[in-house]
């Protein structure tokens, strides 16, 4: 499998605080990668730098053979890099179906070069909402959704951009056990449909079930990268999570 995403020496500071201190990361096509680390370890900063919400000060990001540095977030989305947010950020004034139409208009439209027919957009919206179990609520607004439904909407909207790589940033935070299982099953289904997924998560049972490879960040540095069973037994990882 070839590397879809290549991150080399990525660094980011906030004032004097080093959020990322030269991270290297390769993600292969079709892979399910788990990214973990304690709070403040730099996971979300890394995602923001990869997706273009933040500009990295050092290092480079290559995606699908193209250099991403200097590109705005929307341009990276156009190239197939999509993300969901740690705290759901739906478009509140729109129906669920309209929430999905936005990425379709601006990303799929753009990528295909030919205008998508309204019927195709509608069909795709309903297909995605069916996939996440929200089809019955297509005409409702996000304020009518439960927490888990909001997370599903977030994933569906990221999927509406037809990404090659999806970054799910703590998509299971605050959910019950059964809801975590639901989201996990959904992410695995998406991966089986050919989408490469990076999952950032604190719920270790979900991470272990999901990940084919696990990367651990601590204080802006990568301290482990490998098979999940090996990584969780790594003394440095154990020390980072449990302490000396």
């Amino acid at each position, binding site marked *: 499998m070839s590397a879809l995403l290549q991150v080399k020496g990525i660094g980011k500071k906030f004032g004097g605080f080093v959020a990322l201190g030269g991270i290297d990361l390769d993600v292969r096509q079709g892979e399910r990668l788990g990214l973990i680390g304690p709070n403040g370890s730099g996971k979300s900063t890394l995602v923001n730098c990869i997706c*273009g919400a933040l500009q990295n000060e050092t290092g480079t990001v290559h995606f699908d053979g193209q250099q991403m540095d200097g590109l705005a977030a*929307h341009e990276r989305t156009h190239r197939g890099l999509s*993300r969901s947010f740690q705290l759901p950020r*739906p*478009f509140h*004034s729109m129906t669920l179906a*309209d929430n999905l*139409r936005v990425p379709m208009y*601006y990303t799929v439209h*753009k990528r295909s070069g030919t205008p998508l027919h309204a019927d195709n957009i509608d069909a795709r919206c309903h297909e995605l909402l069916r996939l996440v179990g929200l089809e019955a609520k297509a005409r409702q607004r996000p304020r009518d959704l439960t927490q888990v439904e909001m997370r599903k909407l977030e994933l569906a909207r990221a999927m509406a951009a037809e990404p090659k790589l999806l970054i799910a940033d703590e998509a299971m935070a605050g959910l019950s056990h059964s809801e975590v299982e639901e989201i996990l099953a959904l992410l695995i289904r998406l991966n089986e449909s050919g989408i490469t997924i990076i999952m950032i998560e604190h719920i270790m049972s979900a991470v272990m079930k999901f990940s084919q490879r696990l990367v651990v960040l601590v204080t802006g540095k990568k301290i482990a990268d490998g098979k999940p069973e090996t990584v969780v037994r790594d003394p440095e990882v154990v020390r980072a999570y449990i302490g000396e």
Partner: protein
Amino acid sequence: MRNHVFALVALIVAALVFITLRLVGNEYYFVAGYTIVQYIILATAWNILGGYTGYVNFGSAAFFAAGAYSSVALITFANNIDDLLPGGIAPFFHSIFPLPIPVLIVVAGLVSGLIGYGMGYLTLRLRGAFFAIATLALAVVLQTLVVNWEFVGGSSGAYVIRPESVPLIGNYVQYLFVLMLVLGVIALTIARMIERSKLGAGFAAIRDDELAAEASGVPTLQLKLIATALSGALMGMAGAPFPYFIGFLQPQSAFGLEYAVNSIAMPMIGGTMNWVGPLIGAVLLGTLQQVANVTISSSVNLLLVGLLLIGFVIVAPNGIVGLVQDRLRARKKPGSKP
């Protein structure tokens, strides 16, 4: 309803309004009508940036005045061609100038649209109150420039002599009213078109959550620039015939506080989520102000706006349209009382 059908229906309604006022035969109604339609355009234009994308513009008066003063500059130029240009090329310009008002409106739209684009480029990285303050600053800067620009009359103002009548329509104020009605139809059609388009979806995404919009592939900066330019252009177009309407234009009247306040208050009262809100707000508030003008005093206008705004913020924060939509939605919900 398709956009061209909507534009046709709106034109028919505008024609009916004009015919009705002609039949009534009171000249004051054309003056009042002109002002109300002018506010419909200003409120609709403000709403394209403020309502659709959520960027509150306190500098509406600057765009309106830029349109008005671009007309004054062209009129002054037409009146002084022989003094300003060498004899060789003066006859050529005499053959073009003075420009008819529809051309002045297009020029004003271009000037104000460019100012809007420039303002957007400089300020759109600011958000919320910071953006609003920057737009207010633009109005102050532009007013200072105009006050010190003698060519357009400077602080003492400029007289614009309007013709007594025009062919077909007759009375010049009625002609200006017709122009305003046409502009109003154009502004409403543009706003409605945006609302139902890919552009409108992008604007709404920016208003709801800019970071999420960008992550969904929306080129937020580009869209905001389109919104500022379009909003500015429409405001400038509303200002272009103003020197002819008022006869004497001075900075205090062109940059008047009422333009900035009304163009925000009217969409807020009517509702900012769609094109109907600014129309309702402008008709309601504009008519009330005109009634207050003739029954109490013009100085109560801003007081009226303030009181209504406070009332609506408490009772209907989403404006009249939002209030109606909420009621309808509540009725549709299962378990709600009929």
